[in-house]
C-alpha cells in the first residue's frame, strides 16, 4: 500500500516537474511588467489624504498610526516600487529588485486595503511576487544573464534551479487553487447548496444592473441574464463545481488543460457581466502557460558545449527552406549543421537522440545537452546568430500554445 502511494506521489511529481529555466523568466517579465503598467498611474497617496476614521488596520497593527503614511512618504514609496518593478521585469539585479518589489508592494497594497475595507483582488499577485522573489533562483531570461554569464553557467549545472522553478510555479498554482476552493467552501458554509438553486446569482445580476455601477462591462448582459433565473442557477452550480474542482490543477495535466482555462474564463466573465474586475489575478494564470520547449538529451547524443549545434527542419515547408538557406548563409561562422527531414542523416540523428519528428513540428535544434523543438528551436537559432538577432529571444514572451501554431501554419 505504502509503496503504491509512494509510486503515485513520485509519478505525480514527475509529471508536474516540467519547469524550464526560460519559463520562469518569462513569467517574471509578465508579472512584474504588468504590475508596473497597472500601477504606473495609480495614485496611492490619494488614500493617505482620506480621514483617519477610515483607517482599519488589523488588531496587531493598531499601534501604527495612519499619519505614518503621509502623502509625500507614500509617493516616494510608489516611485521606488515602480523602479523596482521595472528592474525586476527586465531582470536587472533580479534577486534584489524582486525582493524589494515584493516588500514595497506589500506595504503599499496593504496600506490601500486598510482604508475602509480589504479587497481580495490583489492577494494572488502578492503571492506571485513572493514566489518569483523568494522561491525562485535567478533565471536565464534576464539582463543579469547577459551581464553575469559566468554565474549562470555554474548555476545551470546543478539541479537546484529546476527544482526551485518547480516550487515557485507550483506555489502560485496551489494558492490559486486554494483561493477558488476557499470561495466555494465559504459559499457552501454560508448558504449551502441553495446558493446554486435559489436564484441568488439572478438577484446579484439585478442588483448590479440596478445600482448602476458604471464600471466597464457589457451593457445589458446582467439584465438579460437576470430575466432567466433558471439559467442563472445552472451558471451558479457550474461556477461552484468549477471552484471546487480547482485543486485538480495541481495533480492532473488534463485537469490543468481544462479547469485552468475555465477558471480564467469565469473570472473574465465576472468582469464582462458584473463589471467586477480581477486584472492582477488574471495575470497569475501565466503560471499555467509554457513558453519554452526543450528537453535534455541522452548522454550519447550530446553535442557538447563546444560541438556545433545541429538543426533539423521541415523540408516540405517553403518557409522553413527559405529560413534554412538564410541561416546557412548568415551563420556560416557559427558552424550550424542544417539537415532537412527526409535526409538519411536526419533519421540517424533522431534515432540517436531518441526523438521523433511530430506532425506539425517545423524545427528541431540539438545544442549541447538540450533539444529545442518547434518555435523554441527557431528562437534559439536566432540567439546563436548573435548581435541584434538575439532580440528574437523576446519571442519567448508569446506563450507556446500561440507561437507554435503560428510557425507551423506557414507551410506550403
Amino acid at each position, binding site marked *: 500500500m505504502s509503496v503504491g502511494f509512494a509510486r503515485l506521489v513520485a509519478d505525480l511529481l514527475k509529471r508536474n516537474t516540467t519547469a524550464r529555466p526560460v519559463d520562469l523568466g518569462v513569467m517574471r517579465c509578465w508579472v512584474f511588467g504588468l504590475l508596473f503598467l497597472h500601477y504606473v498611474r495609480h495614485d496611492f497617496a490619494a488614500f493617505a489624504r482620506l480621514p483617519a*476614521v*477610515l483607517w482599519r488596520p*488589523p488588531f496587531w497593527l493598531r499601534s501604527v498610526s495612519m499619519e505614518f503614511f503621509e502623502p509625500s512618504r507614500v509617493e516616494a514609496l510608489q516611485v521606488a516600487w515602480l523602479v523596482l518593478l521595472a528592474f525586476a521585469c527586465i531582470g536587472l539585479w533580479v534577486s534584489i529588485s524582486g525582493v524589494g518589489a515584493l516588500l514595497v508592494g506589500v506595504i503599499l497594497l496593504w496600506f490601500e486595503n486598510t482604508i475602509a475595507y480589504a*479587497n481580495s483582488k490583489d492577494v494572488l499577485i502578492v503571492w506571485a511576487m513572493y514566489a518569483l522573489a523568494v522561491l525562485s533562483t535567478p533565471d536565464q531570461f534576464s539582463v543579469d544573464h547577459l551581464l553575469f554569464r559566468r554565474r549562470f553557467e555554474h548555476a545551470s549545472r546543478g539541479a537546484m534551479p529546476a527544482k526551485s522553478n518547480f*516550487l515557485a510555479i507550483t506555489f502560485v498554482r496551489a*494558492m490559486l487553487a486554494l483561493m477558488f476552493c476557499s470561495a466555494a467552501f465559504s459559499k457552501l458554509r454560508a448558504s449551502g447548496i441553495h*446558493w446554486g438553486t435559489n436564484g*441568488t446569482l439572478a438577484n446579484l445580476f439585478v442588483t448590479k444592473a440596478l*445600482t448602476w*455601477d458604471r464600471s466597464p462591462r457589457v451593457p445589458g448582459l446582467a439584465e438579460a441574464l437576470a430575466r432567466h433565473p433558471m439559467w442563472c442557477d445552472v451558471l451558479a452550480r457550474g461556477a461552484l463545481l468549477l471552484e471546487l474542482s480547482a485543486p485538480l490543477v495541481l495533480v492532473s495535466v488534463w485537469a490543468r488543460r481544462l479547469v485552468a482555462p475555465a477558471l480564467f474564463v469565469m473570472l473574465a466573465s465576472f468582469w464582462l457581466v458584473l463589471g467586477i474586475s480581477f486584472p492582477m489575478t488574471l495575470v497569475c494564470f501565466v503560471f499555467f502557460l509554457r513558453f519554452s520547449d526543450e528537453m535534455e538529451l541522452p548522454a550519447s547524443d550530446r553535442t557538447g558545449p563546444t560541438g556545433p549545434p545541429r538543426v533539423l527542419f521541415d523540408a516540405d515547408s517553403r518557409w522553413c527552406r527559405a529560413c534554412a538557406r538564410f541561416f546557412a548563409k548568415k551563420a556560416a561562422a557559427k558552424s550550424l549543421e542544417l539537415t532537412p527531414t527526409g535526409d538519411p542523416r536526419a533519421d540517424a540523428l533522431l534515432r540517436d537522440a531518441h526523438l521523433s519528428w511530430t506532425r506539425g513540428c517545423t524545427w528541431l535544434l540539438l545544442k549541447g545537452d538540450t533539444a529545442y523543438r518547434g518555435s523554441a528551436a527557431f528562437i534559439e537559432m536566432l540567439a546563436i546568430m548573435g548581435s541584434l538577432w538575439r532580440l528574437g529571444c523576446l519571442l519567448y514572451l508569446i506563450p507556446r500554445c500561440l507561437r507554435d501554431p503560428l510557425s507551423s501554419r506557414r507551410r506550403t
Partner: protein
Amino acid sequence: MTRLPGPRAAPSLFKTARLLAFLLPISIQSCYVFRDADGWLFENFSLFSALSKSTTATRYSIYGVRQGDGTEVRLDESAYWAPLDLLRIRAALDLVARASKDDERRFLVALKERYRLNAERGRHAGPPLDSIRIYRVTYDWAAGVDRPTSQRTLVMER
C-alpha cells in the same frame, strides 16, 4: 577521514528555509478554507457567498450638482474617483455616517478634490461641480426585472 559539516550545512539550511517558505503560506491558506474569517493575504474569499432572496437592495449613490444650472448628474462610476472604487467609497460612507459630522465633511471634501484632480488629468469628462450629494437609494424589483422602482433619501451634501 571526517567531513567538515560547514560547507554542506549551508545549502541544506537554504533548502529547508525555501521549503518552509513554500509550505507555510500554503498551510495557513489551507486552514482558511475551513475558517469563517476574512483578512488580507489570508482569507476565505467570501465575496457574494451569502444567499440573496430579497427583491430589494439599498446602496449609496453619488450625485454631483453642476455649476451654473444646478442640475444633478449621477456619478456612480469609478473613473470619477480613481483610485477609489465604488465599493470602497460605499464602505467609507458607511463608516463616516457612523462617525462625526466633521469626518463626513472631510470625506466629501476629499471626494470633491479627487473628482477635480481626475478631471484635470483627463480621466473623465464630467462637468465642474458646485457640490456633491450622497443619496441612500432603495431599489425594488418585486414587480419584475423590467419594472423596478426606487426611492432615494439625501443623507449628505457638501
